[in-house]
């Protein structure tokens, strides 16, 4: 039986990808950001998953205003890194896991989540920057990500976006779906985006360390309380783009303690830094007890 053993949470700031791709990761501005992921890269090697279920949002890349899915699951064999206007990132093609993805899609739809199934899309920085942070950019002679990835895109661009509670419930449904898959697979689930940031208007540049750290505390120890945060609190406290944090609740909802199977989670790593471009960077690794 497949099982979710760990969850990872991280911002997915595009400038982080650009900095890494340009070899600027040792510069004073960027060094502290990447240093926060040194532990994580080793952890990924020591705890290599068979599949990563990667929750992210598309930023007007694969999805225009023609079609805006609330939740979209990728069931394709592969996904190309997107050209977001600066040329595609020089990172490997993302290999999917069509069998597990289709299984999760079927199970989750039958649990009353109204997914959109996607068989063709390019993936933008929302998906590839977390991979770069957690795995490093793969070298030319081994130019591939360590494992297959199932992309799961959440609409956080046009309101109304799904509520934190809906996301948290979805995570629980995903856990049930994974556990009903026959093959013995070690699955990690990642929630990406956030933390506090606002990219627009006279309020651009808003950062709220207190909110962010309180959110991290809650997410670790009292995720149900984190799930209860209404949209307006994210907007007011964490900036208009801070709403991306609802995606972290999908990953958190998939952990065993939420299902009453364990008393909490093991916090393996916690990191917070300001700034990366316009954004606060937050990062957690949680394992099931």
């Amino acid at each position, binding site marked *: 039986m497949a099982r979710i053993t760990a969850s990872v949470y991280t911002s997915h700031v595009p400038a982080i990808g*650009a900095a890494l791709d340009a070899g600027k990761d040792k510069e004073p501005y960027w060094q502290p950001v990447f240093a926060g992921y040194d532990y994580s890269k080793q952890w990924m090697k020591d705890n290599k998953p068979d599949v990563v279920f990667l929750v992210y949002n598309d930023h007007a890349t694969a999805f225009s*205003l023609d079609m805006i899915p609330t939740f979209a699951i990728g069931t394709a064999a592969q996904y190309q890194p997107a050209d977001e206007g600066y040329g595609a990132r020089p990172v490997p093609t993302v290999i999917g896991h069509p069998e597990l993805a289709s299984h999760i899609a079927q199970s989750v739809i039958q649990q009353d989540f109204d997914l959109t199934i996607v068989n063709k899309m390019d993936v933008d920085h929302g998906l590839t920057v977390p991979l770069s942070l957690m795995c490093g950019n793969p070298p030319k002679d081994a130019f591939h990500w360590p494992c297959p990835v199932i992309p799961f895109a959440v609409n956080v661009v046009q309101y109304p976006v799904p509520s934190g509670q809906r996301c948290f419930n979805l995570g629980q449904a995903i856990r049930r779906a994974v556990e009903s898959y026959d093959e013995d697979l070690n699955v990690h689930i990642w929630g990406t985006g956030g933390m506090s940031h*606002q990219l627009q*208007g*006279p*309020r651009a540049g808003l950062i709220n360390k207190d909110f962010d750290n309180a959110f991290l505390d809650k997410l670790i120890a009292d995720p149900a309380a984190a799930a209860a945060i209404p949209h307006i609190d994210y*907007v007011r406290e964490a900036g*208009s783009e801070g709403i991306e944090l609802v995606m972290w609740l999908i990953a958190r909802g998939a952990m065993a303690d939420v299902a009453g199977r364990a008393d909490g989670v093991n916090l393996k790593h916690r990191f917070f830094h300001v700034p990366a471009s316009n954004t606060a960077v937050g990062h957690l690794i949680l394992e099931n007890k």
Partner: protein
Amino acid sequence: MSLDKPYLDVPGTIIFDAEQSRKGYHLNQFCMSLMKAENRVRFKANERAYLDEWPMTEEQKQGVLTRDLNRCMATGGNIYFLAKIGATDGLSFQQMAGSMTGMTEDEYRAMMISGGRSVEGNRYIGEDGDAQAKNQPQGAANKKKEA
């Protein structure tokens, strides 16, 4: 109509909801067209002519031509779509975000390095934070205005 909009009292912020999306549909789809290299070339060769191919309002076109992202936002633009204009110009996301505040690039970058904009005074319209309407534009542009 009776869409509940609890976010209207947040200063310096436009939430991209269904109404904004409807207003900005063609503006945003124009932006999306810039993801193709050949369209970027055509746009840069004659911006006005390229814009005139889209059923956008004159206000929206002026917003694009003057690279006034606040004006684009007010007329229905979404920042992730508008970012395609910046990418066409070779700007970073930090430069684009900063351009909406009136601060210079260096001022904005310095604000971010020193911890970003504070939420204090910037939660509700009517407080006295630096994102409030009465305190615009910020930074050097404000000093220029006062001078």
